[in-house]
């Protein structure tokens, strides 16, 4: 009976984590609002809890909006899921997107990027007492979890085809499986992993291995060819690094898990083309 209850609880927990309200909200204030796209379900990066928004992406977006003359109350947060990001920018549903958005050539064909503001890298999350996994080459015979279709899932399969990979639909489900010992490791960007490891319910139970083996350059997505706006955002990002706000935001959101950005951080933003 206890086991059956555990099964029901696990399933209910996982699905409730994937369910997210759409649309944004913000306190009413004077002046025109600015619509900013973030993730709503990524702890440490972009997370919606009630009407509170937390995470590194939220802090970066708030800082940029501040440099554009907008108070936090004037920001309308909009959920941008991975598959919709390009369309939401080009159709003008959001002004810019800060949502673990890696700069790639395929995406550059549809949107412009300012940044990067963080260089993340694919890493592994394991149980805190697990010393057998120290990197992707030690994964033989281990069960690994990732999200179906994600870059991380594709890369690990290309580089280490022997890995026994279970794909789920969200990382939350993978973390649940990791804690319940269904899988031995979870792979995606170290920033995302640190976000989970910093959550209260997982603190002390999981740890990030800390050996990133790829480079993911997170950028701020905005309308293609809007060089003037891109320059504004780039200047804001540079100011954020130089006045120390960047380091503070990284430490506050991802620090509790002992996250240290890999070498090259804070990155120098690319020139706006």
């Amino acid at each position: 009976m206890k086991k059956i209850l555990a099964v029901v609880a696990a399933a209910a927990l996982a699905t409730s984590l994937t369910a997210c309200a759409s649309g944004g909200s913000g306190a009413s204030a004077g002046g025109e609002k600015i619509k900013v796209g973030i993730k709503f379900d990524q702890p440490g990066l972009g997370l919606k809890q009630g009407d509170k928004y937390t995470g590194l992406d939220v802090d970066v977006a708030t800082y940029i909006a501040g440099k554009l003359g907008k108070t936090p109350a004037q920001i309308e947060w909009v959920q941008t899921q991975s598959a919709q990001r390009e369309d939401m920018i080009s159709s003008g549903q959001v002004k810019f997107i800060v949502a673990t958005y890696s700069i790639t050539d395929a995406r550059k064909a549809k949107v412009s990027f300012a940044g990067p503001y963080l260089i993340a890298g694919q890493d592994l999350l394991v149980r805190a007492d697990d010393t057998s996994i120290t990197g992707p080459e030690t994964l033989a015979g281990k069960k690994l979890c990732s999200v179906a279709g994600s870059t991380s899932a594709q890369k690990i399969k290309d580089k280490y085809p022997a890995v026994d990979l279970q794909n789920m639909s969200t990382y939350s489900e993978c973390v649940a499986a990791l804690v319940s010992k269904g899988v031995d490791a979870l792979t995606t960007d170290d920033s995302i992993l640190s976000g989970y490891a910093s959550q209260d319910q997982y603190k002390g139970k999981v740890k990030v291995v800390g050996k990133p083996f790829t480079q993911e350059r997170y950028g701020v997505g905005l309308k293609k060819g809007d060089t003037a706006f891109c320059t504004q955002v780039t200047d804001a990002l540079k100011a954020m690094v130089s006045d120390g706000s960047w380091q503070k935001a990284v430490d506050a959101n991802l620090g509790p898990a002992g996250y240290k950005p890999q070498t090259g951080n804070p990155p120098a933003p690319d020139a706006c083309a």
Partner: protein
Amino acid sequence: MLDILSRYNVLLAFGLTLLLAFLSAIGALIIGTIVAILRLSPARILQTIGAAFVTIFINTPLTLLMVASILGFTYILGIRLGANTTDNAFWWAVVMLSLYHAAFVCEALRSGVNTIPAGQAEAARSIGLTFGQSLREVILPQAFRGAIAPLGSTLIALIKNTTVAAIIGVAEAAGLMATIIENETGGLGVFFIFAVGFVILTLPLGVWFTELSRKLAVKR
């Protein structure tokens, strides 16, 4: 759009969709028929079991069943259906699709049974046929013929519902679509390819089942 077709194996993904649908359809038909027999049986306890099965599976979201199969049954209860995670996820998807659609098959069959005049079952009893005999010789053959149209709708729904298996990592059509969107960004072209793929699978089936239901209808 054409370069996507040349770089990704769309046909292989749809092949897996078809295999998933084929195995689940057989499973759903077998389980659904058994449950329908339970619901039609004269024993009260069997009726209750059949009704409980239908109520549970018709009212549980398929997504929840899929997630429970991996996070719950595989990881917490340790029930594995394959040597590696890929096989395990595939066979759990077949099981869950079968169970879920069996509830709909059962209800389709019961609607087929309702097309048979009550006098036939009574006549079967009065000439001395047992419950099993009257089911086999009189009720079920007519029930299947009367239920062709709803069974066809269930099969079409099943083919489309195989996409839910993508959330536990089965690399069928929807799984490949997620990969393509991640690499190439989402666009109308990508959605169009997969929408057309499913229309090709389901549209002829719909026409065929309509035709079949007309041809096999019991003339009374």
